[in-house]
């Protein structure tokens, strides 16, 4: 293979790659489901062709031998609307005009019924997984303020979450009682879905696999919140299937007191193909609070969410894109299984990280900032362990203040990046501060002590340390280096 013509190798590689692509069973099944409830876009030309029997394919192929039965829209077979057309498809002109007028009237009526007042032709609040509206098990209160819809297999208004969401109006509160619910829903309304009971006992997970379906070929999103101010609170969301568990696209939803466990066993699945806990994009200003996350969460596309009192247990946070600017506050990252980081900001993103607690594995950076225009402010954070407590590379800017880094291989590592370090303490690391490459560095009132090597400054690195304490022993305060 390696000795043959490059074009032949390229062709063979492409065919080998794409021949192995499976049938898109999931995509076809869902498209067929959606098509069953989605009207076709019939243009006027379509109806005219139908009316006149002008089937272009037959005309082009000269296959107009057999008479074709044309059913005029809205008229039953055998009525005056049914015409057997011969080869020429000739219709007397007055009859054609009359039929045309009738057809246009019917098309107009159909169009009005389809896209009339208060209806949407496409999109809107698509609820995947529900073909027909589910009937409530007991009567719902009339729509109004403070209406509650209970979801409980025995005593609820609905036994399924799908049914409740389909019936909900903006402002409704859907109460989920203990149980396991299978749903994949898109929410565009401002509804509240709240668990009643312990969140671990109230589980929402994707629909089961169809017979013969392979888990690896299936993408499922349990919740998709699109331009919604919905609230999800007090339950567990999990997915044993491929895909992202919660997708937020725009809006200002509240994700409160959730346990988001994409794999369902407290892990994130294969390291090379992890399941995402959530994606926050589309400029969302979502709030994530008091929740437990066991996998990767992504923030991108200009999103400016706020995370408060969240625990990423084995999980991590990936922040990307210019305009993306989350605030992460009082949040704990423990034993991230993401390769290389607990928190990563890149490609022009900004982030404000305040009063967080990060416990890293030995091969990870607690906080990683990369690429020019990426800007990360760190305040009052404790970082323990890891390859680097904080790593800034490739033109990123970090502004770190009142933060402590200990027991890392390198407390703060700056490579071709800008760093402002004020009032921080770097102690008991192998190396306290390591700087290499070009970049602006400002260091004021930092305490760098009790590291095996307090400073590791590459030749040419310009590091102003006059206003810092660089000491061998943090407890005694004895200074062997004063940074001058």
């Amino acid at each position, binding site marked *: 293979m390696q000795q043959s013509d490059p074009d032949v190798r390229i062709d063979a590689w492409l065919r080998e790659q794409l021949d192995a692509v*499976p*049938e898109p069973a999931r*995509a076809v099944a869902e498209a*067929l489901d959606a*098509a069953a409830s989605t009207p076709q876009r*019939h243009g006027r030309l379509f109806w005219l062709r139908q009316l006149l029997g002008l089937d272009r394919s037959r005309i082009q192929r000269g296959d107009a031998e057999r008479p074709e039965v044309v059913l005029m829209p809205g008229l039953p077979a055998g009525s005056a609307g049914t015409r057997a057309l011969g080869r020429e498809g000739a219709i007397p002109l007055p009859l054609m005009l009359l039929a045309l007028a009738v057809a246009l009237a019917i098309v107009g009526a159909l169009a009005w019924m389809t896209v009339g007042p208060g209806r949407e032709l496409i999109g809107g609040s698509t609820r995947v997984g529900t073909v027909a509206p589910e009937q409530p098990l007991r009567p719902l209160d009339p729509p109004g303020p403070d209406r509650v819809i209970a979801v409980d297999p025995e005593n609820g208004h609905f036994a399924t979450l799908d049914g409740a969401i389909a019936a909900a109006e903006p402002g409704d509160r859907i109460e989920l009682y203990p149980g396991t619910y299978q749903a994949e829903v898109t929410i565009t309304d401002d509804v509240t879905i709240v668990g009643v009971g312990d969140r671990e006992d109230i589980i929402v997970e994707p629909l089961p696999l169809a017979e013969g379906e392979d888990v690896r070929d299936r*993408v499922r999103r349990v919740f998709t919140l699109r331009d919604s101010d919905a609230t999800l609170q007090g339950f567990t969301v999990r997915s044993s299937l491929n895909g992202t568990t919660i997708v937020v696209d725009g809006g200002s939803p509240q994700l409160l007191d959730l346990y988001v466990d994409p794999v369902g066993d407290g892990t994130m699945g294969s390291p090379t193909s992890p399941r995402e806990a959530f994606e926050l994009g589309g400029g969302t200003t979502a709030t994530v609070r008091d929740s437990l996350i066991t996998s*990767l969460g*992504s923030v991108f596309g200009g999103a400016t969410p706020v995370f408060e009192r969240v625990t990423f247990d084995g999980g991590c946070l*990936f922040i990307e894109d210019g305009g993306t600017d989350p605030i992460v506050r009082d949040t704990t990252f423990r034993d991230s299984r993401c390769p290389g980081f607990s928190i990563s900001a890149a490609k022009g993103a900004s982030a404000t990280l305040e009063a967080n607690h990060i416990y890293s594995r030995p091969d990870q950076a607690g906080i990683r900032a990369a690429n020019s225009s990426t800007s990360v402010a760190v305040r009052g954070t404790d970082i323990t362990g890891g390859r680097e407590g904080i790593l800034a590379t490739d033109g990123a800017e970090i502004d770190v203040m009142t933060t402590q880094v200990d027991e890392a291989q390198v407390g703060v590592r700056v490579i071709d990046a800008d760093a402002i370090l004020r009032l921080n303490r770097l102690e008991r690391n192998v190396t306290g501060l390591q700087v290499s490459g070009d970049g602006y560095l400002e260091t004021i009132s930092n305490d760098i002590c009790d590291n095996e090597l307090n400073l590791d400054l590459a030749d040419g690195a310009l590091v102003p340390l006059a206003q810092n304490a660089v000491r061998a022993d943090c407890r005694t305060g004895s200074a062997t280096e004063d940074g001058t």
Partner: protein
Amino acid sequence: MDTDVVVRAQRGDQTAFAQLATEGGRRMNALAVGILRDRDLAEDAVQQALLSIWKDLPQLRDPARYESWSYKLLVRACYAEARKRKRRMAEVFGVRSREPVAGDDIGGVVDRDQLERGFRRLSLDHRAVVVMHHYLDMPLENVASALGIPAGTARSRFHRAMASLRAALEADNRPPSPPPGAATNPEPQGAK
């Protein structure tokens, strides 16, 4: 593709549409995977494309052109998916390498790796042309028509993409440069 099936689907026949979706699904999926290099995204794109096909099918004036028209909608859906998910897991976690299978030679594995990297460096526009021409065996004129671009643009994209892929292969065939400071042998290899 049987145009009678297309015509029936145009008239709202769900069974006919299911036949179109099922029969053409795998090729559509292959095209989407080729463009997006991600199976999950590809399936999303195929799903969106199929729904667009269903909705817009009555407006297809020539049922005989169904296949290239459907590819056009699919490529659009691929672009939309790529825009929605600019950030991909592959960028976070690296590309999953293909495990060697029995019979793989070292050269083959290296080739795949180089081509994969080279292909990922291509833009979506270029990938679409390469996959449609090479894998779907569509003449470049038809590719241009399906993509709604001039034939010259399709040819230009194809040649540029192939040049890039050839360069990726050739880069692998070059001997590695010696490490900095390593002694160099001034004599050509084999010289006595």
